[in-house]
């Protein structure tokens, strides 16, 4: 195995090679402190405000794709082989404003201006993919960008008008796509990267087998996929993360396989990458998915990371458990499968042995007569952590509930099935009484806690009411909408 002790990437127009990179060094600090590219701002250093938004271009199956990310929680070591585009590069060498920038100026889209570079980057990424977005598409694209001055109205107006100010021909980055692709291809040498001082070391495995080998040697290593959680360990809690094994680049963990029976999602598939497949196989997750974090975090965060992190308030475990998902763990060359609910043992404790890593998630396709819903309730509707999340799957045969899986997040120390409520429903006729009884049974399933997201009383009430919502949503005689829809 050949090692490399440097990382290579393109920063705006320039090729960069760095030898001295610490595992916990963030892309934002590199831009602002080392490169003095101060257009990218630090607003929160936790991936919630978007002031630090930059584009990361990377090759996926040979195609160059640009995505917005939060530079504040993206680690520098993980940008090996990528193209980083910061706000300074957008206007191009002639200094002429990009159509996105022009629209923001013309529509008075900035007031204090501190969040503005981040908004420009998000709107630019949207415009690249979708030059004529709807209002809703704009809102979803800027879910991860906070503005405290404008109330967003002029920003949305600007976003809807970018095409008045120029098309792709005015896009400097578009013109150099091919040359960037070539330059990035050259950087791919498929070598393991080991970089940084001994006590602050970053390792980028060459491939999945290499990862398995590294974890055998270093069972205590911190595995970092999207860094949307571990990033905060560093920026907020100043925790050491060495040795850090970065896996977000591993194509072998980014495989999505759809068969007649199952959907298998590689551990490093991001929320964004799985979105279109999920909405085809599990249409009930379309709305739910838009409520997971903001665009930047959906581009970084992975399904495997959301599970491996073990949080009781993660967005995916409740809905995946309800769908009978299995987690596939690998250790060296050994692979084992586990029903997802069994992976979560207790708060902060998962069934992940030394050197284990999450390889993939496998979800069976829904049965005939299976009714599925996924609900998330949070203080703020979007880009918020759930107070309560629930996945509900019910199989209905001739008006009788013949199978039933209900899993909640936010109700216990782990994402957890509501067994008593399931029992109350199983074998009963489809009617509101059955769901009311299940709601009462929830009291025996859970005794939730109060915190700043929600009180235990609210959690209990809402978890009951969501069963009622499920019944009403799927009941054929319901005439009026029973939940808010995004418009």
């Amino acid at each position: 195995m050949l090692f490399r002790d440097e990382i290579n990437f393109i920063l705006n127009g320039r090729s960069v090679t760095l030898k001295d990179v610490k595992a916990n060094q963030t892309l934002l600090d590199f831009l602002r402190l080392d490169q003095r590219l101060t257009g990218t701002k630090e607003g929160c250093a936790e991936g919630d405000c978007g002031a630090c938004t930059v584009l990361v271009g990377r090759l996926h199956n040979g195609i160059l794709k640009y995505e917005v990310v939060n530079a504040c929680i993206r680690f520098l070591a993980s940008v090996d082989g990528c193209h980083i585009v910061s706000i300074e590069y957008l206007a191009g060498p002639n200094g002429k404003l990009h159509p996105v920038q022009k629209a923001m100026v013309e529509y008075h889209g900035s007031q204090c201006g501190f969040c503005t570079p981040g908004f420009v980057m998000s709107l630019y990424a949207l415009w690249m993919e979708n030059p004529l977005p709807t209002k809703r598409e704009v809102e979803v694209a800027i879910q991860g960008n906070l503005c405290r001055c404008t109330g967003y109205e002029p920003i949305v107006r600007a976003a809807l008008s970018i095409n008045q100010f120029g098309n792709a021909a005015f896009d400097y980055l578009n013109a150099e796509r091919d040359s960037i692709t070539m330059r990035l291809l050259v950087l791919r040498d498929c070598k393991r990267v080991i970089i940084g001082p001994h006590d602050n070391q970053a390792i980028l495995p060459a491939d999945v087998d290499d990862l398995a080998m590294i974890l055998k040697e270093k069972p205590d290593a911190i595995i970092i996929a999207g860094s949307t959680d571990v990033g905060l360990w560093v920026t907020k809690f100043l925790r050491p993360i060495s040795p850090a094994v970065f896996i977000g680049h591993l194509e072998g963990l980014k495989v999505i396989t759809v068969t007649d029976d199952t959907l298998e999602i590689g551990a490093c598939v991001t929320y964004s990458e799985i979105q279109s497949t999920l909405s085809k196989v599990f249409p009930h997750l379309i709305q739910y998915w838009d409520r997971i974090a903001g665009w930047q975090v959906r581009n970084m965060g992975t399904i495997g990371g959301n599970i491996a992190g073990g949080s009781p308030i993660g967005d995916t475990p409740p809905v995946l458990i309800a769908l009978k998902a299995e987690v596939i763990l690998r250790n060296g060359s050994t692979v084992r499968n586990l029903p997802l609910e069994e992976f979560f043992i207790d708060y902060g404790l998962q069934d992940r042995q030394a050197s284990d890593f999450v390889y993939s998630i496998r979800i069976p396709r829904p049965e005939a007569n299976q009714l599925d819903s996924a609900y998330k309730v949070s203080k703020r509707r979007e880009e918020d952590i759930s107070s309560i999340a629930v996945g509900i799957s019910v199989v209905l045969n001739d008006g009788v509930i013949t199978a039933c899986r209900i899993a909640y997040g936010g109700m216990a120390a782990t994402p957890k099935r509501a067994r008593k409520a399931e029992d109350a429903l199983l074998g009963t006729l489809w009617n509101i009484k059955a769901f009311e009884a299940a709601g009462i049974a929830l009291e025996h399933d859970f005794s939730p806690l109060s915190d700043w997201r929600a009180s235990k009383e609210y959690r209990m009430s809402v978890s009951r009411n969501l069963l009622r919502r499920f019944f009403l949503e799927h009941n054929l005689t319901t005439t009026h909408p029973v939940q808010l829809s995004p418009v």
Partner: protein
Amino acid sequence: MTDLVKISGGVYTDHKHDSATKHVTGQAEYCDDILEPIGTLHAYLGVSDVAHAIIKGMDLTAVKAMPGVVGVLTAKDIPGINDISPTGQNDEPVFPTDKIQFYGQPLFAVIATTRDIARRAAKLAVMSYDILPHALDPIAAQDAGYPYVTAPLKLERGDVLLAKKSTQNHIQGRIIIGGQDHMYLEGQIAFAIPGEDDDLIVHCSTQHPSEAQHMVALVMGIPNNAVTVNVRRLGGGFGGKESQMNLFCVVASIAAKKWNRAVKLRPDRDQDMTATGKRHDFVIDYDVSFDDDGRIQAVDNVLAARCGFSSDLSGPVTDRALFHADNAYFYPNVRLVSRPMKTNTVSNTAFRGFGGPQGVLAAERMIEEIAFATGQDTLDVRKINFYGESDRNVTPYHQTIKDNILPRLIEQLENTADYRKRRKVIIDFNKNSQILKKGIALTPVKFGISFTATWYNQAGALIHIYNDGSIHLNHGGTEMGQGLHTKVAQIVADAFQVDFERIKITKTTTEKVPNTSATAASSGTDLNGMAALNAAEQIKERLIDFAASHWKLDKTQIKFNSNMVHIGAECLTFNAFIKLAYIDRIQLSAAGFYKTPDIHWDRAAGKGQPFYYYAYGAACSEVLVDTLTGEYRVERTDILHDVGRSLNPALDIGQVEGAFIQGMGWLTTEELWWDDAGQLRTHAPSTYKIPLASDRPRIFNVNLADWSENRELTIKRSKAVGEPPFMLGISVLEALSMAVASVKNYQKCPRLDTPATPERILMAIERLQGEGE
């Protein structure tokens, strides 16, 4: 001579924000972007992890021992006075010496070669305390016998007791109003550079450069003239950088002098939100008496506020809550009392509206109570209680309202928003829709303009015209996104009739304009615009005198017009004319000054004319509520707002839209949540939720009352815009309340406390459903 050619960027035009291009390209420089001199050090604050305690010991050995640490600062290192109280109350130490008064209180600072090292070292202090019991909210504080942080205010007019006795209907109740974090995107930051003698230059992000200057001088024990404070722009302020920057400025300054190096202090977001003050939470007990038509006869309210451990600006904030406890309504007999309670929390401070919104909220709650009690549409109750235009027009502080335009404004909005018809449709919808419920409300705002501390209502400006005809503009106001610099430059461009682009807008600095007031109380343009105009007019007068004598013409023959100067039949470019004036030794520089006329306030008597004029507005909001979860969405908001004659309609609409959303956030999802230990647990955007783009009303119509003109001689007859529209967000709360009330057929006032999170909405629904008829 023709007026056809207009200058670019004159008054009453939609000129772009002067920094717009720099914002969108990332070239706008904020304090943290300033190039650091070689050897710059970084400071970080070490804070308490208890809410209330006697300090027994503070062992900083481990802090100092960390490699890269240059030293620490404690109270002992303060050369001058250990106090940064903005109101001179001597109750806010930079670092405490005896007592810890809130969780997260700064205790010391560590200075290191990098910010990262300083942050890590700050966690290594070993504290020993004697823990004391703490009180976090105003009610707990009252129960525990805590003192007021500052003298309460009483406003009284008429005979409340007599009026209560002679009126049939009375309602007593309580509204608990949550605070709000400013959540400016750019956090607090100060960057001090030492100079010769006592000199210090402090770059920072403050709304009040003069106060920061004076505080640094006080704490350093040096005269004000040794300290220069510079501010080019803030990444948002909203009141949170009026007095709160003082701490950061003084700490950076002490360290800069002590080590003779440049020192930067920038807290992370968690520390920013836990160590700096917020909007005051209020608990308001109301007692309203009204006749059978719903006309208010007497109001007898007590307004208690969570002020935190020190007075800061809590005196004027709680005063302003009383000044706005009437909102737009005439109280024939009234008694209002403030209770500025000391609590073991961070010292609360200015925030857009400055106590006013909390006062207004209680007024609107009383309107709601009366509407539910009398079975009326809330708008009808509002209307019969509005101030009159010529009678029923005296406020609780005995100021007569002379400029009331609300009747016309409300009527217009009621029609354009189609309020009556939509309300009927909504009531029908609620009858049929089992789970989702709607509500609608149209609420007014009247907001008094002027600092209630009369002496703050002054401003200065400095204009130079260089001999090439370029203009350098400086004034005492700070730019925090509101477009103040743009508006003032428009005023100067208009005065000289030259293009906006000719004017160089420069950083606010205490070197150019001394003794300025905070850019606050919505007063920025009113005060600084007038001062700049005064400076421009002084220069213009000299230029006209010069031209009249040089060309031997009457002064009326000299006209400035579209970058030209017309002198009788001759016509010169502005540049050529300025060159001639320079050669003729005309002074091309002037300092302008302005003070607001006609205002006075006698706090002891509770009487006077504290406000120069009022700004008005109204909003109509419709909401949709999910009664299973308490979640909601704003379906539509229509706003009609009064900015007098708008200097820049685009910027003014931007202020109205932004203020509305911020006000809505305050009342809906922005929740400050302390745990039992007194630690604020919602202290970053991951836990503290300000509105997103998707929280905007689905339909959002914002208009300025284009027929309005300030009756007072304000700058170009415009009106202040910063704060008043914040209170338009109250329409959302009132609409939510109606939707909640629908579950009990509008029989009961839901008494929603704020913020009305989905949880509070659901709990109110369950409470109403559980109550008997």
